[in-house]
């Protein structure tokens, strides 16, 4: 991602109206390890306005969680090398000191983790943990006020008998209720940015539907910006306004949810859509998997990171193995990073991919 891409990205952003609340520019997060430099996130840019939801999709190891932890400032600075810009309401978080980020974390931005059983402390009651989150940012609040606030939040996220359950320990909650409690904890300070990292992956479908509903309702109520990270395209389709597809630490495609599902541009996105069995379609005899395995982030393939798995790599005349494709705008707000000529891509999509989806 070069300077070139920044301009169209900025221009495309204000779909939600006005300055984006969160603006990430050329974010790179690299880790030094004994085996070499791991390029977990390698030049990711996006904008997110309040009231909008961004879905980040990708396989494990594509850098989606690292991105979100980077925004939250949760990487140890010794090991992680973070460059680029993360602007939250105009303030650059990469340049800001850890103390400043700690002030913002929990108040302006909050996170819901995948596994509520490991994310919550088993030794403290659910109430104590929510109270702590509240009092850190409201030092003037009394214990009583904080407790009342905790009960109110538990009630808001749909926990029955919140005044009694507030004194329960996490293990006394079921999986779905624990996730609700974690959402309550994240929202206790009315954050403007909520990051949900695989919020429903550990849950059953029926509970997943409840939680997705809850996140949607809460967003409407609080008008916050939401980032939802998941590997499940069904979940993003439920929630997201915009979608960012990550592969090998880079953004390979980005666009409004509908466009991305209707006319995906990147062969990797085609692969993801094609490999998924779907209940809303006629049964296919065979799934069409993406061949091979996700790349190692230490030895990212040269050129386009997807080329060893891409069935159309040969059509680029060798460019895909040598040159890293940049994100280019293919339709308003819809960007893709692929060397295939636009006409060629559209032909492949309409002739070969679309009938299979």
């Amino acid at each position, binding site marked *: 991602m070069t300077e070139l891409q920044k301009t169209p990205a900025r221009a495309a952003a204000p779909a939600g109206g006005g300055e984006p609340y969160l603006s990430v520019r050329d974010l790179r997060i690299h880790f030094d390890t004994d085996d070499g430099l791991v390029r977990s996130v390698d030049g990711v840019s996006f904008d997110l306005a309040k009231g909008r939801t961004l879905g980040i999709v990708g396989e494990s190891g594509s850098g989606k969680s690292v991105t979100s932890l980077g925004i939250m400032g949760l990487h140890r600075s010794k090991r992680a090398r973070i460059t680029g810009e993360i602007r939250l309401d105009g303030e650059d978080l990469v340049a800001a000191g850890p103390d400043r980020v700690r002030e913002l974390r929990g108040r302006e931005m909050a996170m819901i983790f995948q596994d509520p059983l490991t994310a919550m402390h088993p030794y403290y009651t659910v109430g104590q943990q929510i109270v702590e989150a509240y009092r850190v940012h409201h030092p003037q609040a009394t214990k009583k006020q904080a407790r009342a606030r905790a009960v109110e939040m538990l009630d808001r996220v749909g926990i029955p008998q919140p005044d009694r359950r507030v004194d329960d320990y996490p293990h006394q909650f079921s*999986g779905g209720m624990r996730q609700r409690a974690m959402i309550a904890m994240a929202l206790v300070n009315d954050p403007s940015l909520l990051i949900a990292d695989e919020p429903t992956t550990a849950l059953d479908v029926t509970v997943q539907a409840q939680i997705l509903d809850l996140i949607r309702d809460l967003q409407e109520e609080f008008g916050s910006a939401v980032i939802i990270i998941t590997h499940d395209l069904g979940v993003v389709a439920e929630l997201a306004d915009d979608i960012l597809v990550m592969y090998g630490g880079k953004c390979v495609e980005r666009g409004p949810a509908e466009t991305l599902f209707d006319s995906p541009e990147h062969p990797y996105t085609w692969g993801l859509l094609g*490999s998924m069995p779907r209940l809303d379609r006629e049964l296919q005899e065979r799934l069409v*998997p993406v061949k091979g395995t996700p790349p190692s982030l230490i030895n990212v393939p040269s050129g386009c990171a997807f080329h060893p798995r891409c069935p159309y790599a040969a059509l680029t005349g060798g460019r895909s193995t040598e040159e890293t494709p940049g994100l280019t705008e293919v339709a308003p707000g819809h960007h893709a990073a692929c060397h295939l000529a636009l006409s060629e891509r559209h032909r492949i999509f309409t002739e070969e991919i679309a009938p299979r989806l």
Partner: protein
Amino acid sequence: MTDTQAATIPAPAPAPDRQPLLRVTGLTRHFPIHSGLMRRQTGAVRAVDGIDFTVNAGETLGVVGESGCGKSTMGRLVTRLDEPTAGKIEFEGTDITHLGVGAMRPLRRDIQMIFQDPYSSLNPRHTVGTIVGAPFRLQKAEPEGGVKKAVQELLELCGLSPEHYNRYPHEFSGGQRQRIGIARALALRPRMIVADEPVSALDVSIQAQVVNLLDDLQRELGLTYLIIAHDLSVVRHVSDRVAVMYLGKIVEIADRDSLYRAPMHPYTTALMSAVPVPDPRRRQSGGRERILLKGDVPSPINPPSGCRFRTRCWKAQEICATQEPPLVAATAGHQVACHFPENAVTGDGARASA
């Protein structure tokens, strides 16, 4: 497109005249709860509470349900990794319910298992060759051409390279590890494979590879599968027949097409409507009718009286609390345990009125 698809979809294994490979009747597993000073039994977790089903040779039975519904316990009972409290398991007409470890051993050649987590089901200190060759050693089987050759053939069959023989599990990705697990299960040419969530730990793109592999192996080797999974779309893809479990009971069992087209049990309907659909338009048009089940699955220690689903069911009436609905055939090949089954049509009418 639809025509070609219809033509290529393998017909659900017919042959109702054949004797089922596996027949399970009244299978029950209660885990006792002990408490107090004397460690007396004070209750039981009714993980599996009286289920009946059959699996015919060459077909795939998919079992779906939420976590805690007893589907994994059922899998462990069928493979005799766990001792049933009551009921009967017949494999090819032989009663294997209470066979001892020694008596069970010859049958282990015929029934194998694939586990969910490819990270914990392979011994990290053993090479791939040792892992996949273990069944030969344990069964004292001498494959033609030696164990090494047989293992390498198995690896190739499962889409791995024979050179992987001397490598260790940590050198492989999740999808490859699952292939190693599958190769191990296939070593003794089993008749039936019980797969407990075989793809749920894998990425979407890899998931499809493994699903296709299972498919190919079934066709090539004539395997019979019992696939346990929570993902309804995967189960639809792999199964010929599908059983839906709720709180230790089978609430519905039917041919795949008939179950997915016209689910009869309200729980099945709710389960299907909860699956997120990768189509943002549906959300925007507001045209989706989703049944949101309230609350969580009740505890299997004290399951609700009568129909176990009644506490979350929108159709529940008095009779549901007093009388347990039996699993009966509503139409040919479609059994359901409900007092008020959904219409045999897509269930749309019933949903609207509810």
